[in-house]
């Protein structure tokens, strides 16, 4: 579904991603782990069209999406729930959700999706006309995910959804991710919480200084003693 080939991305002179290749097949949950500054966020932002690659290809459903503006990429079915949530705190929760559906023309579908989101995250419905900035961190994360689902993506990019959340909420978020996959959304998940992420994902990539160093089925990676020591913070 998504195929990244030999991707390189730089901020000015700083090269953040170099020669990175990665594939996500339809229906998979794919995890990307890696230390701070490894280039995970940069990769996702490039897929979303916010950053332009210096070299490499990004194919979505077999077609190149490099050079397309972000809104065109959203329309094709890729949605991005960014690191740090980036909800619009001065707008209401309903408005945040509506903005997630900014490029959709089917008003009725948007309305029913909104109901679906409220069903999935009841706390959002209770507070739907309040400013999103008044939500707690965990609630904001749910709003961010809900907002990104409002565009009806077939591929969802999730950047560190469990960051800074209490264990119970982390569980809830991972449950949601699994549920989404069961509903047919393909997921590319970036996580520091690698242990949990590997448990729910099919395959995984380890990123180091902008490139893939290890890849394989999650079950293999989770049991690799070297990886466990180096990246998973276990043992």
């Amino acid at each position, binding site marked *: 579904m998504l195929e990244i080939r030999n991707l390189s991305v730089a901020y000015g002179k700083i090269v953040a991603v170099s020669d990175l290749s990665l594939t996500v097949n339809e229906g998979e949950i794919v995890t990307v782990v890696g230390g701070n500054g490894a280039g995970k966020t940069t990769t996702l*932002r490039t897929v*979303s069209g*916010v950053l332009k690659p210096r070299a490499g290809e990004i194919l979505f459903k077999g077609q190149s999406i490099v050079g397309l*503006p*972000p*809104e065109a*990429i*959203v*329309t094709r079915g890729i*949605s*991005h729930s*960014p690191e740090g949530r*980036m*909800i*619009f*705190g*001065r*707008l209401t929760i309903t*408005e945040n959700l*509506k*903005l*997630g559906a*900014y*490029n959709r023309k089917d008003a009725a579908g948007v309305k029913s999706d909104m109901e679906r989101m409220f069903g999935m995250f009841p706390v959002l419905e209770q507070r739907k006309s309040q400013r999103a900035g008044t939500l707690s961190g965990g609630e904001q994360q749910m709003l961010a995910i809900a*907002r*990104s689902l409002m*565009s009806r993506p077939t591929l969802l990019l999730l950047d560190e959804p469990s960051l800074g959340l209490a264990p119970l909420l982390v569980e809830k978020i991972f449950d949601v991710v699994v549920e989404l996959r069961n509903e047919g959304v393909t997921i590319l998940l970036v996580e520091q919480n690698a242990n949990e992420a590997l448990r729910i994902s099919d395959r995984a990539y380890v990123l180091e200084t902008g490139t893939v160093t290890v890849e394989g089925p999650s079950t293999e990676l989770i049991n690799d003693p070297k990886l466990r020591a180096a990246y998973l913070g276990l043992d």
Partner: protein
Amino acid sequence: MTINYILQQLVNGLALGSIYALLAIGLTMVYGILRLINFAHGDLMMLGAYVSSIFISATVVPILLAVLIPTLLIAVMGLIVERTAYKPLRGAPEVAMLITSLGVSRLIQNSTVLALSPQPRAFSLPGDLTKTVNVGGIRFTQLDVLTFLLVIVLMVLLTLYINRSKTGMAMRASSENLQAARLIGINVNWAIGAAFVLGSALAGTAGFLWASRYGIIDPFMGFLPGVKAFVAAVIGGIGSIRGAVVGGVLLGVAEIGFVGFLPPEFSGYRDAFVFSLLLIVLLVRPNGLFGASEVERA
């Protein structure tokens, strides 16, 4: 000093303040999204005044057109400026945008000089608009009344649009976090374009009002009011439309008050007074009255 004199000054201050408010709205919307001080904004007002003067001098045209046509034309003009000069600078350091807007300001001023003349020209309203009405000793012109009405109506319409429409929502989102707006697929160029169109339209209206008040227009008339309107936007809290309106009105009243209530030898310092106010506000309350965004501090 009679109560009538005070009220009279208040009327004059409100009239000037209304014009600042119209200008400040455009500046605050653009600054909110792009972090750009559009130094050319006042020059768009000047163009509005010139367009308006064409229709004012043709007496057969109803006065409404002398307001409406500059409003529409300057809206288009603002969009052209955005797309040609500012859009290529997305992501550039803010200083590059600032310098560009100074360049655009110069370009507009001197194009007007070239196309018309550097000399000021008279702008005279049809007689009945300048006729004064005496209400309990306070003199209003019909123009004053028209100014207030126009400003209030435009303000209400704009607020409704920003708060209710999809584009308005996108503008607010872009103003809060441009990166996030882009990332989730909002067409931010559309939102930016809308901010320029709406803001410039108001500048076009302001051009008519300013010229009507002072009766004279010249190619360089817009720069200082434009910068003062930015001061008003800062006083109100940059990024906030309500702040721009309140800041504009306060600044107009303060400026007229400064001239009206201090001995005449101070009146030459009115511009200095405005900018001293700016400095005080920036230091004491940098977010202004309603500001949500913060001043970048060292």
